[in-house]
């Protein structure tokens, strides 16, 4: 548990907190981008180069942009008139605490389950590529199919709207 880990996790948690408490929705989206960056740096600190850079490339470079576009194209960009916290905050906090408890229990149990003396595995991009197209090729193809379906669906929805407006 080095000082770098504490700093990075503080950054990530701060980004997450800011994302839910800031007033302006676009500010929230930018705070989410900061949280993504914190996660990427955590991956890099764990020597997972591919995961870290892919996180930056995909999450900050595409997902964050998608989120801000979605905010701008709907009316989420106006500052909210009511309070930001919903009225059912108690139920929300309870559910979030429950999920956190389950995940925390799973992580801690896994730490006990692994042997202590294994060195960190040296994962190169080469090995990831081999694994993806060797052992995990079926999940890869299913995910690709899913993405294609969503892309085609999005284009159809947009085209349908264009057809209607014409």
């Amino acid at each position, binding site marked *: 548990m080095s000082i770098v880990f504490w700093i990075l996790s503080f950054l990530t948690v701060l980004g997450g907190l800011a994302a839910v408490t800031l007033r302006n929705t676009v500010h929230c989206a930018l705070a989410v981008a900061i949280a993504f960056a914190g996660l990427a740096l955590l991956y890099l600190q764990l020597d997972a180069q591919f995961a870290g850079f892919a996180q930056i490339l995909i999450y900050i*470079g595409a997902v964050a942009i998608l989120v801000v576009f979605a905010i*701008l194209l709907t009316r989420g960009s106006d500052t909210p008139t009511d309070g930001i916290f919903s009225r059912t905050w108690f139920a929300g906090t309870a559910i979030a605490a429950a999920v956190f408890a389950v995940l925390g229990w799973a992580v801690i149990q896994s730490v006990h389950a692994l042997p202590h003396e294994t060195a960190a595995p040296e994962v190169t*991009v080469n090995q990831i590529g081999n694994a993806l197209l060797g052992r995990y090729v079926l999940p890869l193809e299913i995910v690709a199919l899913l993405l294609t379906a969503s892309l085609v669906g999005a284009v159809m929805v947009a085209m349908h709207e264009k057809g209607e407006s014409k």
Partner: protein
Amino acid sequence: MVSTLDQIFVLLKHWIVSLLPAVLQPVTGVVLSVVAIICVFPALFAISVLLERKGLGRMQNRIGPNRVGPLGILQPVADGIKSLTKEDIVPTNADAVVHFMAPVFLVVVVFMGYAVLPMGRNMTLVKMDAALLFYFAMGASTELAVFMAGWSSRNKYSLLGAMRAVAQMISYEVPLLLSSVSVVMITGSLSLDKIVEAQNQYTWGLPHWYIFTPWGCAAFVMFAIAATAETNRSPFDLPEGESELVAGYFTEYSGFKFAEFFLGEYVGMLSISGLGTTLFLGGWSAPLEVLGFVPSWIWFFSKVMLSICVMIWMRGTLPRLRQDQLMNFAWKFVLPFTLLILVDVVVWRFMGEGWLRWVVCSAILLIAYVGIGRSEMLRKKIGPRSYRYAE
């Protein structure tokens, strides 16, 4: 002697580092390299700005700036002083924090890309396994900075410019990545150092640069188009189109922040030229084996400046593309062609060495190019104008 000149910066760095106590040494080494990059590339930015203004002038039958120093050499200095002393206007309604952070974020992210470029033999700042992925990750973050700039100005036109810029950058990011993937496929590694070393071999005195292969040439052309679009350069500079949107997403910026955007654009141009050089033009390797005595960093920077000159040449020649023409071009021509290049690379790799693979690969690409070009022109999607003016 020759190799000393080649490694002179590395030796200098080692010497300075050795003067310090051991505990400070790693940090100092990195800091020195970073300082070197931060000094060299803005100087190159100044040179390229001057080159652009004089070059564009000559192409337009006029002289560029020639009053400030002899032949206008001190013009960038004058521009820098002007930017620094101009009043920094922040609109009242603008989102102050985001407005301030956008140019800072842009410049930081653009300079990060230089960490993995091999600028000479043993002259890469950080040797990484996934170097190319790091570079593209930094390039993707640029889009967020552009969006931040456009949105925080609370100006509908800036926002429109930012949206257009982001759409353009995202559309051209895919062909950019795919054309680099073709290089990665042949080399078998994402590390830029390995890519340059793979190109540093010579047959009959000629180098193995990837641009000299059929798929490499096509991939380089696609890479160049996508790179020009990524950095919002003419003919893809609609987001900053001066006649349409004043200055697009950086309309509300003045003084030094504007200079930061300008710096970010040109440094980004240099950076992506550096990447193109590394991937396709052999990085720091010499064009002919006999010329190997010239230091490697001279070759790298000459190739980068040559790419800059070509970009300036394109700016002076081509008219601006409209947003829909731009997007059509990306998704209907560049992307399919890039996918075909990937297939071509596979054919190249799995056919044996010899003249046959040259013929087959070139044939595939040429037929596809002419075919797509002709069909698109027939359907009046690209090419000379297909509408008539009112008589």
